[in-house]
């Protein structure tokens, strides 16, 4: 039997529309993007109806993780014009009789959130491997015997009294810890907090 030969079609596809679409998408993402800040821990914030945008300038962010550890980030991102990170670290070092080299100060200024006892900061700053570095993030001591968090806040406030405080707590963090954080902040004359939340619409109706 004679074989039926199908005409071989060229496998060429016209990619022009696809490329057009890609170009559009790429432009969209490039223009709308605002980079997610690197954070020491993943925090699942609770929901609220608040539509007020979280402040992104001149802000001290305090992170409360779900296992009640405290991390913080300050003078970073779009507010780097203030440049107080080095000064604050120097003050902290003075307090704990540590010395940081210029290189370490520079590294600290460029990194974001951290959470560890001050004594460990040096080795954290000198660790190259990012996986290894993560192990240092054990939270800032906050209990009354060694309240380093209080000192951090005090030094930051001294350097930059205008900074606003944003508390970014995990939904399942204990209220006790958050309350403790607020108490320390109030001791440092911070009476206004921004609680970072996710937007979720809620409706309320009055029953007639």
């Amino acid at each position, binding site marked *: 039997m004679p074989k039926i030969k199908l005409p071989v079609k060229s496998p060429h*596809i016209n*990619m022009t529309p*696809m490329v057009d679409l890609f170009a559009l998408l790429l432009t969209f993402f490039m223009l709308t993007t605002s980079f997610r800040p690197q954070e020491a821990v993943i925090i699942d914030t609770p929901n609220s109806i608040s539509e007020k945008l979280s402040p992104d300038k001149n802000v001290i962010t305090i992170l409360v993780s779900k296992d009640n550890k405290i991390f913080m980030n300050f003078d970073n991102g779009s507010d780097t014009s203030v440049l107080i990170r080095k000064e604050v670290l120097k003050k902290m070092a003075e307090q704990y009789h540590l010395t940081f080299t210029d290189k370490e100060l520079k590294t600290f200024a460029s990194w974001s959130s951290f959470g560890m006892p001050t004594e460990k900061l040096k080795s954290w700053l000198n660790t190259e491997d990012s996986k290894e570095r993560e192990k240092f993030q054990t939270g800032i001591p906050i209990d009354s015997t060694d309240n380093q968090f209080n000192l951090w806040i005090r030094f930051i406030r001294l350097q930059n009294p205008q900074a606003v405080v944003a508390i970014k707590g995990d939904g399942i963090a204990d209220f006790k810890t958050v309350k403790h954080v607020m108490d320390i902040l109030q001791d440092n004359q911070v009476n206004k907090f921004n609680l970072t939340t996710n937007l979720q619409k*809620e409706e309320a109706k*009055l*029953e007639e």
Partner: protein
Amino acid sequence: MAEIIQEEGKQKGGKKKAKKFSTNIDMTPMVDLMCLLITFFMLTTAFSKPKAMEITMPEKKNDPSVKAPEISADRTMNILISGNDQIYYFFGMADPKKPLPQLIKTDYSKDGIRKVLLQRNKIVFKAVTDLREKVLKGELVMADTTVNRKIKELKKSDKNAPIILIKADDKAKYKNLVDIIDEMAITNIANYAIVDMAPTEKQMLESAAANK
């Protein structure tokens, strides 16, 4: 991937034609690169900017001569928050020398605490929703800032609006607190404060939990 270079048709013998170059360009590398870039931007983008709710706490006063302002007991409503998403409320003050007010159990749902709060804050809530509706329908033309200021004024106008005292114990979660503050925003309550729980109230909570 597809290579887009078309073969040219056979040329006829005698005549010499200038060689025609195909105008098609191989776009594959470009597409690859774009794919990568899109993926990168999609993964690193923070789509929803984080929102924040602002709370202002009263300044801590160490001066014992300054007394806390008196608040009338019949305007006061206390919300007690405990672990396992438990929430109770009572009206008035819990004075250990007097018979204790009844503790009522409720929940975080729409028909729970919100209903109670709305009932207490009826007048203000109605005024605010009326204003919002009017603006939405275009009956009132105002700038957003003016609307917000008006709402703030309305919230404070009612001299009988409830005063909510939010008290959480050590077992409560941060989420519970945020939920309750959020509930205040939903029901347009202007006067609320986060207060430490008094020992009497702790006892009330314990006995309520035991009676369950």
